[in-house]
């Protein structure tokens, strides 16, 4: 049986799609057959972040409405073996997604894949509820910022009450915190919530901390999930997170700001090099 993982946050713009693309790619790089589903009907973007937008023919709504076979709608990644994307519909409204339809798709995908990642839309409306309904595990993407932390807490409550596991009184959805856009220099200046604060408030296990990084925008510009940029701190942090998800013991990195150059460095080091 495949594991169903929802990538969710409540708040928009915190990095759900970036994280879904990175983690799905990372799992496939580790040899796990992985499919990532875009649940943001009407505002599809995972295809762009994954760089497959020009190869999308059918989408999840076509499959649910019987207009296309699931296999026809899956877009296979050309860079990594065993990775596929099921795009969201760009034109139809959210009512086209039904619980029965999603259940059938997940059941069918379970036969062929090890992991099914559900990239949730923002909010707590139908699309977001469907994205988390079938989850065995949840990756809660949070920024170190008050509105994001509050919304994450809200979505944790929803996971505990409205998921299939909650309704059927099974073992609860396993929750993971992924703290993104973390800026250690601002944390050290007292301008940003620190990791320990967020952990204390949300009180769920930490999967990873992704540092604020220019490489994330570069990755989305080019349609390559940032995890493929193994020189970047964000890419390395996502690789660590995937490793931890699979049970590797990896220490957390990038939690401290690089040391400021001393006097000598400032005089001769050219000051603020990038």
């Amino acid at each position: 049986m495949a594991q169903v993982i929802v990538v969710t946050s409540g708040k928009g713009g915190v990095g759900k799609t970036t994280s879904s693309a990175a983690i799905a790619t990372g799992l496939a790089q580790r040899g796990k057959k992985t499919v990532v589903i875009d649940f943001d009907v009407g505002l599809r973007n995972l295809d762009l972040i994954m760089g497959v937008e020009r190869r999308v023919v059918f989408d999840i709504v076509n499959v649910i409405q019987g207009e296309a076979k699931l296999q026809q709608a899956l877009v296979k990644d050309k860079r990594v073996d065993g990775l596929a994307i099921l795009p969201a519909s760009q034109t139809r409204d959210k009512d086209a997604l039904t619980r029965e339809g999603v259940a059938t798709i997940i059941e069918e995908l379970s036969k062929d894949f090890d992991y099914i990642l559900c990239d949730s839309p923002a909010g707590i409306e139908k699309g977001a509820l469907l994205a988390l309904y079938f989850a065995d595990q949840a990756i809660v993407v949070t920024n170190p910022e008050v509105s994001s932390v509050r919304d994450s807490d809200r979505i944790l409550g929803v996971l505990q009450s409205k998921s299939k596991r909650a309704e059927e009184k099974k073992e609860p959805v396993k929750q993971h915190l992924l703290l993104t856009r973390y800026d250690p220099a601002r944390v050290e200046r007292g301008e940003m919530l620190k990791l320990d604060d967020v952990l204390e408030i949300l009180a769920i296990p930490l999967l990873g901390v992704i540092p604020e990084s220019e490489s994330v925008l570069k990755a989305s510009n080019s349609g390559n999930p940032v995890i493929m940029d193994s020189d970047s701190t964000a890419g390395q942090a996502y690789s660590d997170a995937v490793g931890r998800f699979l049970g590797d013991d990896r220490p957390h990195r990038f939690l401290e700001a690089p040391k400021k150059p001393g006097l000598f460095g400032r005089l001769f080091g050219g000051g603020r090099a990038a």
Partner: protein
Amino acid sequence: MSWLNFFRAQKREEAQQPPGTAAAAKDRLQVIISHERVSRGRDDFLPKLQQELVQVVARYVAIDPGKVQVNLERGGDFSTLAIDIELPGPKAQAH
């Protein structure tokens, strides 16, 4: 003297930093989230409370339902609920 400023620049920058706002963020989050966790899955009782209070008071005094204010201040240790009901004065009652 200007070359000396080069050495001072960093110190001064640090001194000009406003006191960290991250601590305030944490405090505010802890209070609001603990309240939201308690009320999770329950309807907001305030509208009903206000309605019932007005009904009780209206049994004794003719009041304007529009002149009822309910203020709630959520705190970490305790919260305060202040209900302000404007009662008509003797002049208004005389009419």
